[in-house]
């Protein structure tokens, strides 16, 4: 979210340098449990050390750096589905247990100090929004992920398209629109006299969340869905 120049990431590049260039990559490392000192480890070594599929890791790194994969670049021989799911599941944990509670706390702090009229509305709005997000996350965990496991185990025969990709995209658009609304309200319209520090904290948190949610939805639309379609095709055709 802070960088203006981005590198197209390749296996022999030094991971620490890449993080310095784009700090958001720390989130990616976290999601694969890559928590030790990076030293001079390059991307490929790091993947080997943590048994993460290198093509998947590279694809995700490059998404964080603003390079979007094309449909034809995605294939199940190269990209391991379980690693994509691991990434998505851990992003859910980040939203549910870290980012949303953090923003909710900030709003609660505002509520204690400010003229409560606006803030009460803000709390309601955020509460409703969070509920909607959780519903989407639940949908993924209860419908999409089990479907993925079925596909991987070859048990999905006959069960074509347990979920619709159009519906999936609509969810994403909706979540992104509301988040953008929240950001615009905070930045442009609500006057929070004297609480500039808190306002900045909320906005930073919202922008970090927005950036990560965007990548999360791109991973699902540009990587997960094409992969599933490949697997479904293979499944149907023996």
């Amino acid at each position, binding site marked *: 979210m802070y960088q*203006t*120049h*981005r590198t197209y990431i390749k296996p022999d590049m030094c991971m620490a340098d890449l993080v310095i260039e784009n700090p958001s990559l720390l989130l990616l490392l976290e999601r694969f449990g890559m928590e030790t000192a990076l030293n001079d480890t390059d991307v490929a070594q790091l993947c080997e050390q943590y048994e993460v599929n290198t093509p998947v890791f590279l694809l995700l790194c490059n998404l964080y750096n*603003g*390079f*979007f994969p*094309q*449909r*034809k670049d995605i294939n199940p021989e190269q990209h391991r589905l379980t690693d994509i799911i691991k990434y998505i599941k851990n992003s859910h944990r980040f939203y549910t247990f870290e980012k949303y509670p953090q923003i909710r706390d900030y709003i609660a702090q505002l509520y204690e100090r400010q003229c409560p*009229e*606006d803030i*009460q*509305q*803000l709390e*309601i*709005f955020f509460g*409703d929004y969070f509920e909607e997000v959780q519903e989407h996350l639940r949908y993924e965990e209860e419908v999409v992920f089990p479907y993925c496991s079925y596909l991987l185990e070859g048990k999905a025969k006959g069960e074509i398209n347990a979920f619709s990709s159009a519906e999936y*995209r609509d969810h994403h*658009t909706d979540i992104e*629109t*509301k988040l*953008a*609304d*929240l950001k*615009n*309200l905070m930045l*442009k*319209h*609500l*006057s929070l006299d004297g609480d500039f520090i808190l306002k900045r904290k909320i906005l930073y948190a919202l922008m970090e969340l927005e950036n990560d949610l965007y990548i999360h939805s791109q991973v699902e*639309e540009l990587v997960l869905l094409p992969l599933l379609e490949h697997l479904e095709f293979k499944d149907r055709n023996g």
Partner: protein
Amino acid sequence: MDKCRVNIAILEPSTVLYEGLSTILLKTHHHYYFFRFADLEELAVMYKLTPFDIVVANPCMLQNKQKAFVRLKKKMPQVYWIALVYSFYDDELLSLFDNKFSITEDPKVMLNCFERACDSCKCNEKPGKKKLLSERETEVLIALTKGLANKEIAEMMNISIHTVMTHRKNIVEKTGLHSLPALTMYAISKKLIAFEPGGEP
């Protein structure tokens, strides 16, 4: 800090040219995002998900597809079209683009071309515009927060549904808010409507 995020769609069959183009563009201070497409159809599908600001296209991808191209241009009114030229094309085809550059030109010429595109792109247009809602737009906003439908608003204000839609579009553009709860909060913070505790529309 970046000025604004610019989504660039690239229709170019050569990977060498695509990589070169994106590398040169990434060296500027703009926040460019690249999307590469194999054909017009793919571009049209993605446009629904990610609205592009600029499309760079090799005219060879559009030859014999001029009708489809013109139709797509109409569907994507904000998009700035740049032709990436490295062989001869007839003027009729090139005239469909907003701008063009040849790969033999200095990269500075190309960057100028993008600067111009950014100037005309929507995110840079906004600051100059007047942001306050007009009297009629405020009326529509208040009616919306009361839960009235477009048809009811039209009848109440004695205007056509079409006009209501235009007002709504302007409200969204001016406030940057899309959802009804957010618009309600806006109306409360501007004291346009009274706050009713627990009275969520």
